[in-house]
Protein backbone atom coordinates (compact mmCIF):
# COMPACT_ATOMS: atom_id res chain seq x y z
CA UNK A 1 0.00 0.00 0.00
CA UNK A 2 2.97 2.26 0.46
CA UNK A 3 3.67 4.72 -2.33
CA UNK A 4 5.49 2.99 -5.09
CA UNK A 5 8.98 4.13 -5.83
CA UNK A 6 9.02 4.78 -9.53
CA UNK A 7 12.57 5.74 -9.81
CA UNK A 8 14.33 2.72 -8.37
CA UNK A 9 13.37 0.62 -11.39
CA UNK A 10 14.45 3.36 -13.69
CA UNK A 11 17.74 3.56 -11.81
CA UNK A 12 18.40 -0.09 -12.48
CA UNK A 13 17.71 0.41 -16.13
CA UNK A 14 19.90 3.44 -16.20
CA UNK A 15 22.85 1.33 -15.13
CA UNK A 16 22.26 -1.06 -17.99
CA UNK A 17 21.91 1.44 -20.81
CA UNK A 18 23.32 4.50 -19.07
CA UNK A 19 22.00 6.98 -21.62
CA UNK A 20 20.89 9.78 -19.33
CA UNK A 21 23.81 9.61 -16.95
CA UNK A 22 26.64 9.60 -19.48
CA UNK A 23 25.17 12.31 -21.67
CA UNK A 24 24.50 14.57 -18.76
CA UNK A 25 28.01 13.99 -17.49
CA UNK A 26 29.63 14.78 -20.76
CA UNK A 27 27.71 18.00 -21.11
CA UNK A 28 28.16 19.55 -17.70
CA UNK A 29 31.45 17.91 -16.84
CA UNK A 30 30.77 18.06 -13.12
CA UNK A 31 29.87 14.69 -11.67
CA UNK A 32 29.14 16.10 -8.21
CA UNK A 33 26.25 18.17 -9.49
CA UNK A 34 24.93 15.26 -11.48
CA UNK A 35 24.85 13.05 -8.42
CA UNK A 36 22.62 15.53 -6.64
CA UNK A 37 20.39 15.93 -9.68
CA UNK A 38 20.04 12.19 -10.05
CA UNK A 39 19.39 11.64 -6.36
CA UNK A 40 16.57 14.14 -6.49
CA UNK A 41 15.08 12.48 -9.52
CA UNK A 42 14.92 9.17 -7.68
CA UNK A 43 12.77 10.58 -4.92
CA UNK A 44 9.52 10.68 -6.84
CA UNK A 45 6.85 8.68 -5.12
CA UNK A 46 3.42 7.93 -6.41
CA UNK A 47 0.62 8.11 -3.83
CA UNK A 48 -1.36 4.85 -3.55
CA UNK A 49 -4.74 4.67 -5.29
CA UNK A 50 -7.55 6.02 -3.11
CA UNK A 51 -9.31 2.70 -2.53
CA UNK A 52 -6.10 1.05 -1.43
CA UNK A 53 -5.25 3.90 0.91
CA UNK A 54 -8.55 3.97 2.78
CA UNK A 55 -9.33 0.25 2.74
CA UNK A 56 -7.86 -0.35 6.19
CA UNK A 57 -9.83 2.52 7.70
CA UNK A 58 -13.32 1.46 6.66
CA UNK A 59 -14.23 -0.16 9.97
CA UNK A 60 -12.76 2.63 12.07
CA UNK A 61 -14.74 5.25 10.19
CA UNK A 62 -17.96 3.26 10.36
CA UNK A 63 -17.44 2.68 14.08
CA UNK A 64 -16.80 6.37 14.62
CA UNK A 65 -19.91 7.36 12.67
CA UNK A 66 -21.96 4.76 14.48
CA UNK A 67 -20.81 6.14 17.83
CA UNK A 68 -21.39 9.71 16.73
CA UNK A 69 -24.83 9.31 15.22
CA UNK A 70 -26.12 6.37 17.22
CA UNK A 71 -28.19 5.39 14.24
CA UNK A 72 -27.45 2.72 11.72
CA UNK A 73 -29.06 4.35 8.69
CA UNK A 74 -27.48 7.70 9.45
CA UNK A 75 -24.09 6.12 9.93
CA UNK A 76 -24.38 4.39 6.58
CA UNK A 77 -25.45 7.59 4.85
CA UNK A 78 -22.58 9.52 6.37
CA UNK A 79 -20.16 6.71 5.56
CA UNK A 80 -21.08 6.97 1.90
CA UNK A 81 -20.80 10.75 2.02
CA UNK A 82 -17.43 10.57 3.80
CA UNK A 83 -16.16 8.18 1.18
CA UNK A 84 -17.26 10.30 -1.77
CA UNK A 85 -16.00 13.53 -0.28
CA UNK A 86 -12.67 11.95 0.56
CA UNK A 87 -12.33 10.60 -2.98
CA UNK A 88 -13.12 13.98 -4.48
CA UNK A 89 -10.62 15.77 -2.27
CA UNK A 90 -7.94 13.05 -2.30
CA UNK A 91 -5.73 14.88 -4.87
CA UNK A 92 -5.41 17.83 -2.50
CA UNK A 93 -3.98 15.64 0.27
CA UNK A 94 -0.30 16.42 0.32
CA UNK A 95 1.14 13.54 2.28
CA UNK A 96 -0.06 10.04 2.91
CA UNK A 97 0.82 10.38 6.62
CA UNK A 98 -2.02 12.82 7.11
CA UNK A 99 -4.62 10.50 5.61
CA UNK A 100 -6.08 9.16 8.87
CA UNK A 101 -6.77 12.44 10.67
CA UNK A 102 -7.85 13.97 7.38
CA UNK A 103 -10.53 11.36 6.77
CA UNK A 104 -11.67 11.59 10.38
CA UNK A 105 -11.98 15.30 9.90
CA UNK A 106 -14.27 14.80 6.94
CA UNK A 107 -16.34 12.34 8.97
CA UNK A 108 -16.58 14.62 11.99
CA UNK A 109 -17.48 17.62 9.84
CA UNK A 110 -20.29 15.62 8.32
CA UNK A 111 -21.48 14.60 11.79
CA UNK A 112 -21.50 18.22 12.84
CA UNK A 113 -23.41 19.26 9.72
CA UNK A 114 -25.95 16.59 10.38
CA UNK A 115 -26.37 17.64 14.02
CA UNK A 116 -26.88 21.24 12.93
CA UNK A 117 -29.44 20.28 10.30
CA UNK A 118 -31.33 18.28 12.87
CA UNK A 119 -31.36 21.19 15.24
CA UNK A 120 -32.63 23.56 12.55
CA UNK A 121 -35.49 21.31 11.67
CA UNK A 122 -36.29 20.96 15.33
CA UNK A 123 -36.40 17.22 15.00
CA UNK A 124 -35.42 14.97 17.86
CA UNK A 125 -32.77 12.39 17.16
CA UNK A 126 -34.62 9.15 16.64
CA UNK A 127 -32.36 7.19 18.85
CA UNK A 128 -32.75 9.55 21.75
CA UNK A 129 -36.50 9.13 21.83
CA UNK A 130 -36.14 5.38 21.73
CA UNK A 131 -33.73 5.47 24.62
CA UNK A 132 -35.79 8.06 26.37
CA UNK A 133 -38.21 5.29 27.39
CA UNK A 134 -36.10 4.92 30.51
CA UNK A 135 -36.09 8.37 32.07
CA UNK A 136 -32.73 9.73 33.09
CA UNK A 137 -33.82 10.13 36.69
CA UNK A 138 -34.26 6.37 37.01
CA UNK A 139 -30.86 5.64 35.56
CA UNK A 140 -28.41 4.04 37.92
CA UNK A 141 -26.30 6.68 39.60
CA UNK A 142 -23.10 4.75 39.15
CA UNK A 143 -21.54 3.12 36.14
CA UNK A 144 -21.50 -0.62 36.30
CA UNK A 145 -20.76 -3.29 33.76
CA UNK A 146 -24.40 -4.07 33.03
CA UNK A 147 -26.32 -2.93 29.97
CA UNK A 148 -27.97 -0.15 31.98
CA UNK A 149 -24.63 1.38 32.80
CA UNK A 150 -23.72 1.21 29.14
CA UNK A 151 -26.91 2.98 28.16
CA UNK A 152 -26.30 5.62 30.78
CA UNK A 153 -22.79 6.15 29.51
CA UNK A 154 -23.96 6.37 25.92
CA UNK A 155 -26.44 9.03 26.83
CA UNK A 156 -23.86 10.88 28.84
CA UNK A 157 -21.54 10.95 25.83
CA UNK A 158 -24.37 12.17 23.61
CA UNK A 159 -24.89 15.07 26.03
CA UNK A 160 -21.28 16.23 25.76
CA UNK A 161 -20.57 19.35 23.69
CA UNK A 162 -19.77 18.44 20.07
CA UNK A 163 -16.03 18.91 20.11
CA UNK A 164 -15.53 17.16 23.42
CA UNK A 165 -17.68 14.23 22.40
CA UNK A 166 -15.88 13.82 19.10
CA UNK A 167 -12.45 14.18 20.64
CA UNK A 168 -13.35 11.59 23.24
CA UNK A 169 -14.60 9.16 20.61
CA UNK A 170 -11.57 9.61 18.40
CA UNK A 171 -9.27 9.09 21.36
CA UNK A 172 -10.99 6.25 23.18
CA UNK A 173 -12.79 4.36 20.41
CA UNK A 174 -10.73 5.03 17.33
CA UNK A 175 -7.43 5.32 19.20
CA UNK A 176 -6.12 8.38 17.35
CA UNK A 177 -3.09 10.27 18.61
CA UNK A 178 -3.72 13.74 20.02
CA UNK A 179 -1.90 15.31 17.08
CA UNK A 180 -4.17 13.39 14.71
CA UNK A 181 -7.27 14.50 16.60
CA UNK A 182 -5.95 18.04 16.44
CA UNK A 183 -5.75 17.81 12.65
CA UNK A 184 -9.19 16.22 12.43
CA UNK A 185 -10.85 18.87 14.60
CA UNK A 186 -8.80 21.79 13.34
CA UNK A 187 -7.38 22.71 16.73
CA UNK A 188 -4.10 22.39 18.61
CA UNK A 189 -2.97 19.12 20.12
CA UNK A 190 -3.24 20.71 23.56
CA UNK A 191 -6.81 21.69 22.87
CA UNK A 192 -7.59 18.15 21.75
CA UNK A 193 -6.05 16.78 24.93
CA UNK A 194 -8.05 19.28 27.00
CA UNK A 195 -11.28 18.33 25.20
CA UNK A 196 -10.77 14.67 26.02
CA UNK A 197 -9.94 15.55 29.62
CA UNK A 198 -12.99 17.78 29.98
CA UNK A 199 -15.18 15.10 28.45
CA UNK A 200 -13.93 12.47 30.87
CA UNK A 201 -14.36 14.89 33.76
CA UNK A 202 -17.96 15.57 32.79
CA UNK A 203 -18.65 11.87 32.49
CA UNK A 204 -17.23 11.37 35.97
CA UNK A 205 -19.45 14.16 37.32
CA UNK A 206 -22.40 12.59 35.54
CA UNK A 207 -21.95 9.41 37.46
Amino acid at each position, binding site marked *: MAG*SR*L*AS*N*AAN*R*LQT*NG*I*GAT*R*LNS*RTGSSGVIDI*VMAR*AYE*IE*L*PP*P*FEEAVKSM*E*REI*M*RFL*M*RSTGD*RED*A*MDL*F*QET*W*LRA*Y*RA*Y*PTLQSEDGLRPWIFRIASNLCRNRARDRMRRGRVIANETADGAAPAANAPNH*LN*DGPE*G*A*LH*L*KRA*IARLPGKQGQA*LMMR*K*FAGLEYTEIATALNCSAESARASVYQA*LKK*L*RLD*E
Partner: protein
Amino acid sequence: MKTNRMATQLKESTPIDDRVLDAMIGKTRPRIEHAMKLLRRPQARVGVTSSPLGRLLIAESDRGLAAIHFLFMDGAERTLAMLRKKFDLIENEASARRIGAEIDRVFEGDFSAMAHPVDLSLVESDFQRRAYASLRKVPPGAVITYHGLAATVGQPDSQRAIGNTMASNPIPIFVPCHRVIRSDGTIGNYGGGVDNKIKLLRAEGFEVGRDLRLPSRAVMGHRRTGIFCRPGCSAARRADPTKMLIFADAKCAGHAGLRACKLCKPA
Protein backbone atom coordinates in the same frame (compact mmCIF):
# COMPACT_ATOMS: atom_id res chain seq x y z
CA MET B 1 -13.57 6.52 39.04
CA LYS B 2 -10.07 6.26 37.67
CA THR B 3 -9.63 7.57 34.15
CA ASN B 4 -8.12 4.33 32.90
CA ARG B 5 -10.97 2.25 34.19
CA MET B 6 -13.39 4.60 32.57
CA ALA B 7 -11.55 4.39 29.27
CA THR B 8 -11.72 0.60 29.28
CA GLN B 9 -15.33 0.76 30.20
CA LEU B 10 -15.99 3.19 27.40
CA LYS B 11 -14.57 0.70 24.97
CA GLU B 12 -16.37 -2.29 26.42
CA SER B 13 -19.64 -0.71 27.46
CA THR B 14 -21.45 -0.78 24.15
CA PRO B 15 -19.29 -2.89 21.94
CA ILE B 16 -19.96 -2.70 18.22
CA ASP B 17 -19.11 -6.01 16.71
CA ASP B 18 -16.80 -5.99 13.67
CA ARG B 19 -19.31 -8.18 11.88
CA VAL B 20 -22.02 -5.56 12.35
CA LEU B 21 -19.68 -2.93 10.92
CA ASP B 22 -18.72 -5.17 8.01
CA ALA B 23 -22.37 -5.80 7.24
CA MET B 24 -23.05 -2.07 7.24
CA ILE B 25 -20.05 -1.38 5.04
CA GLY B 26 -21.18 -4.16 2.70
CA LYS B 27 -24.62 -2.53 2.46
CA THR B 28 -23.23 0.87 1.55
CA ARG B 29 -20.87 -0.53 -1.07
CA PRO B 30 -23.34 -0.77 -3.98
CA ARG B 31 -24.51 2.78 -3.26
CA ILE B 32 -20.93 4.01 -3.21
CA GLU B 33 -20.11 2.15 -6.42
CA HIS B 34 -23.11 3.73 -8.09
CA ALA B 35 -22.13 7.24 -7.05
CA MET B 36 -18.49 6.64 -7.93
CA LYS B 37 -19.45 5.93 -11.53
CA LEU B 38 -20.23 9.61 -11.90
CA LEU B 39 -17.32 10.88 -9.85
CA ARG B 40 -14.46 8.65 -10.81
CA ARG B 41 -11.52 10.30 -12.53
CA PRO B 42 -10.02 8.59 -15.57
CA GLN B 43 -6.88 6.56 -15.00
CA ALA B 44 -3.39 7.56 -16.06
CA ARG B 45 -0.40 5.24 -16.16
CA VAL B 46 2.74 6.87 -14.81
CA GLY B 47 6.33 5.76 -15.16
CA VAL B 48 9.91 6.91 -15.56
CA THR B 49 12.03 6.18 -18.59
CA SER B 50 15.45 7.07 -19.94
CA SER B 51 15.72 8.84 -23.26
CA PRO B 52 18.32 10.70 -25.30
CA LEU B 53 16.87 13.85 -23.70
CA GLY B 54 17.51 12.63 -20.16
CA ARG B 55 15.19 10.87 -17.81
CA LEU B 56 11.50 11.52 -18.31
CA LEU B 57 8.43 11.16 -16.15
CA ILE B 58 5.62 10.04 -18.45
CA ALA B 59 1.87 9.85 -17.88
CA GLU B 60 -0.51 8.27 -20.36
CA SER B 61 -4.29 8.02 -20.17
CA ASP B 62 -6.60 5.91 -22.30
CA ARG B 63 -6.99 8.86 -24.65
CA GLY B 64 -3.29 9.44 -25.14
CA LEU B 65 -0.21 11.01 -23.65
CA ALA B 66 -1.17 13.27 -20.77
CA ALA B 67 2.15 14.60 -19.48
CA ILE B 68 5.90 14.43 -19.94
CA HIS B 69 8.28 15.96 -17.43
CA PHE B 70 12.05 16.34 -17.80
CA LEU B 71 13.21 14.92 -14.48
CA PHE B 72 16.40 16.96 -14.35
CA MET B 73 14.21 20.05 -14.16
CA ASP B 74 12.40 21.04 -10.96
CA GLY B 75 8.70 20.66 -10.50
CA ALA B 76 8.06 16.93 -10.89
CA GLU B 77 5.91 17.14 -7.76
CA ARG B 78 3.89 19.93 -9.33
CA THR B 79 3.33 17.87 -12.45
CA LEU B 80 2.19 14.93 -10.34
CA ALA B 81 -0.13 17.16 -8.31
CA MET B 82 -1.68 18.49 -11.52
CA LEU B 83 -2.09 14.97 -12.84
CA ARG B 84 -3.70 13.80 -9.61
CA LYS B 85 -6.39 16.45 -9.94
CA LYS B 86 -7.50 15.06 -13.27
CA PHE B 87 -6.55 11.39 -13.09
CA ASP B 88 -6.27 8.43 -10.77
CA LEU B 89 -2.61 7.56 -11.08
CA ILE B 90 -1.34 4.03 -11.35
CA GLU B 91 2.27 3.05 -11.75
CA ASN B 92 3.08 1.46 -15.07
CA GLU B 93 6.68 1.26 -16.19
CA ALA B 94 5.83 -0.62 -19.40
CA SER B 95 3.74 2.27 -20.68
CA ALA B 96 6.54 4.76 -20.01
CA ARG B 97 9.07 2.46 -21.64
CA ARG B 98 6.92 2.22 -24.77
CA ILE B 99 6.81 6.01 -25.05
CA GLY B 100 10.56 6.07 -24.40
CA ALA B 101 11.05 3.71 -27.33
CA GLU B 102 8.99 6.03 -29.53
CA ILE B 103 11.23 8.95 -28.61
CA ASP B 104 14.24 6.79 -29.47
CA ARG B 105 12.66 6.16 -32.88
CA VAL B 106 12.36 9.92 -33.43
CA PHE B 107 16.09 10.20 -32.89
CA GLU B 108 16.60 7.47 -35.47
CA GLY B 109 14.67 9.54 -38.00
CA ASP B 110 11.23 7.93 -37.79
CA PHE B 111 8.84 10.78 -37.10
CA SER B 112 5.64 8.73 -37.35
CA ALA B 113 5.98 8.17 -33.59
CA MET B 114 5.26 11.87 -33.10
CA ALA B 115 1.69 11.27 -34.24
CA HIS B 116 0.95 9.53 -30.93
CA PRO B 117 -2.45 10.79 -29.67
CA VAL B 118 -2.33 13.29 -26.84
CA ASP B 119 -4.73 13.94 -23.97
CA LEU B 120 -4.84 17.65 -23.24
CA SER B 121 -6.80 17.28 -19.99
CA LEU B 122 -4.15 19.20 -18.07
CA VAL B 123 -4.69 22.24 -20.30
CA GLU B 124 -7.24 24.56 -18.79
CA SER B 125 -7.71 27.38 -21.28
CA ASP B 126 -9.29 27.28 -24.68
CA PHE B 127 -6.61 29.54 -26.15
CA GLN B 128 -3.89 27.14 -25.07
CA ARG B 129 -5.81 24.16 -26.36
CA ARG B 130 -6.12 25.81 -29.78
CA ALA B 131 -2.45 26.78 -29.74
CA TYR B 132 -1.38 23.19 -29.06
CA ALA B 133 -3.75 21.88 -31.71
CA SER B 134 -2.36 24.13 -34.43
CA LEU B 135 1.19 23.52 -33.24
CA ARG B 136 0.64 19.80 -33.79
CA LYS B 137 0.06 20.63 -37.46
CA VAL B 138 3.61 21.98 -37.87
CA PRO B 139 5.41 18.98 -39.40
CA PRO B 140 8.82 17.67 -38.30
CA GLY B 141 11.53 19.47 -40.23
CA ALA B 142 9.65 22.76 -40.02
CA VAL B 143 9.50 25.45 -37.37
CA ILE B 144 7.15 28.36 -36.76
CA THR B 145 7.67 31.65 -34.95
CA TYR B 146 5.83 32.62 -31.77
CA HIS B 147 4.22 35.38 -33.79
CA GLY B 148 3.21 33.02 -36.60
CA LEU B 149 1.67 30.55 -34.18
CA ALA B 150 -0.27 33.35 -32.49
CA ALA B 151 -1.69 34.25 -35.91
CA THR B 152 -2.84 30.69 -36.57
CA VAL B 153 -4.74 30.76 -33.29
CA GLY B 154 -6.47 33.88 -34.53
CA GLN B 155 -4.77 36.39 -32.23
CA PRO B 156 -1.73 37.65 -34.15
CA ASP B 157 -0.64 40.04 -31.39
CA SER B 158 -0.54 37.45 -28.64
CA GLN B 159 2.96 36.10 -29.19
CA ARG B 160 3.73 36.65 -25.51
CA ALA B 161 0.76 34.51 -24.53
CA ILE B 162 2.01 31.88 -26.96
CA GLY B 163 5.38 32.04 -25.21
CA ASN B 164 3.73 31.38 -21.85
CA THR B 165 1.65 28.62 -23.39
CA MET B 166 4.75 26.91 -24.76
CA ALA B 167 6.46 27.25 -21.38
CA SER B 168 3.61 25.46 -19.68
CA ASN B 169 3.25 22.77 -22.33
CA PRO B 170 2.34 19.60 -20.39
CA ILE B 171 3.42 17.25 -23.18
CA PRO B 172 6.73 18.48 -24.63
CA ILE B 173 8.23 16.53 -27.58
CA PHE B 174 4.82 15.22 -28.67
CA VAL B 175 3.19 18.65 -28.62
CA PRO B 176 6.20 20.02 -30.49
CA CYS B 177 6.90 23.25 -28.65
CA HIS B 178 10.55 22.82 -29.64
CA ARG B 179 9.43 23.81 -33.16
CA VAL B 180 8.57 27.33 -32.06
CA ILE B 181 11.35 29.90 -32.52
CA ARG B 182 11.81 33.64 -32.36
CA SER B 183 11.02 35.88 -35.29
CA ASP B 184 14.67 37.00 -35.53
CA GLY B 185 15.71 33.45 -36.41
CA THR B 186 17.32 32.53 -33.09
CA ILE B 187 15.91 29.40 -31.58
CA GLY B 188 14.78 30.88 -28.28
CA ASN B 189 14.25 29.04 -25.03
CA TYR B 190 12.96 25.63 -24.05
CA GLY B 191 11.28 24.25 -20.94
CA GLY B 192 13.50 21.17 -21.08
CA GLY B 193 16.71 23.16 -21.55
CA VAL B 194 17.99 24.80 -24.73
CA ASP B 195 20.35 21.84 -25.25
CA ASN B 196 17.38 19.54 -25.59
CA LYS B 197 15.67 21.91 -28.01
CA ILE B 198 18.78 21.82 -30.19
CA LYS B 199 18.94 18.03 -29.93
CA LEU B 200 15.33 17.67 -31.03
CA LEU B 201 15.66 20.17 -33.88
CA ARG B 202 18.83 18.45 -35.08
CA ALA B 203 17.07 15.07 -34.98
CA GLU B 204 14.42 16.59 -37.23
CA GLY B 205 16.98 17.93 -39.69
CA PHE B 206 17.71 21.44 -38.43
CA GLU B 207 21.43 21.97 -38.05
CA VAL B 208 21.39 24.65 -35.38
CA GLY B 209 24.73 26.43 -35.29
CA ARG B 210 26.79 27.65 -32.35
CA ASP B 211 25.12 31.06 -32.53
CA LEU B 212 21.79 29.31 -31.89
CA ARG B 213 20.52 30.36 -35.28
CA LEU B 214 18.76 28.34 -37.91
CA PRO B 215 20.89 26.99 -40.79
CA SER B 216 21.47 29.12 -43.88
CA ARG B 217 19.83 26.43 -45.99
CA ALA B 218 16.50 27.06 -44.27
CA VAL B 219 13.67 28.09 -46.58
CA MET B 220 10.43 29.91 -45.95
CA GLY B 221 7.26 28.06 -46.90
CA HIS B 222 3.96 29.79 -47.40
CA ARG B 223 1.16 27.67 -46.04
CA ARG B 224 -1.60 29.19 -48.12
CA THR B 225 0.08 29.30 -51.52
CA GLY B 226 2.16 26.16 -51.04
CA ILE B 227 5.33 27.83 -52.32
CA PHE B 228 8.70 27.95 -50.59
CA CYS B 229 11.38 30.63 -51.09
CA ARG B 230 14.83 31.61 -49.96
CA PRO B 231 14.60 33.93 -46.92
CA GLY B 232 15.66 36.97 -48.97
CA CYS B 233 13.26 36.40 -51.88
CA SER B 234 11.14 39.42 -52.77
CA ALA B 235 8.04 37.23 -52.94
CA ALA B 236 8.70 35.94 -49.44
CA ARG B 237 9.20 39.48 -48.13
CA ARG B 238 5.85 40.54 -49.53
CA ALA B 239 4.03 37.50 -48.10
CA ASP B 240 2.17 37.63 -44.80
CA PRO B 241 4.79 36.56 -42.24
CA THR B 242 2.18 34.90 -40.07
CA LYS B 243 1.44 32.38 -42.83
CA MET B 244 5.06 31.29 -43.04
CA LEU B 245 6.63 28.07 -41.83
CA ILE B 246 10.40 27.70 -41.84
CA PHE B 247 11.74 24.47 -43.24
CA ALA B 248 15.20 23.03 -42.58
CA ASP B 249 15.94 22.85 -46.33
CA ALA B 250 14.29 22.56 -49.71
CA LYS B 251 13.95 18.80 -49.35
CA CYS B 252 11.94 19.07 -46.14
CA ALA B 253 9.63 21.63 -47.76
CA GLY B 254 9.23 19.35 -50.76
CA HIS B 255 8.24 16.47 -48.44
CA ALA B 256 5.59 18.67 -46.91
CA GLY B 257 4.04 19.12 -50.37
CA LEU B 258 5.28 22.62 -51.21
CA ARG B 259 6.82 23.66 -54.54
CA ALA B 260 9.87 25.85 -55.12
CA CYS B 261 9.46 29.54 -55.89
CA LYS B 262 10.10 30.39 -59.54
CA LEU B 263 11.78 33.70 -58.70
CA CYS B 264 14.47 32.70 -56.23
CA LYS B 265 14.69 29.02 -57.26
CA PRO B 266 15.61 27.62 -53.83
CA ALA B 267 15.64 23.97 -54.95
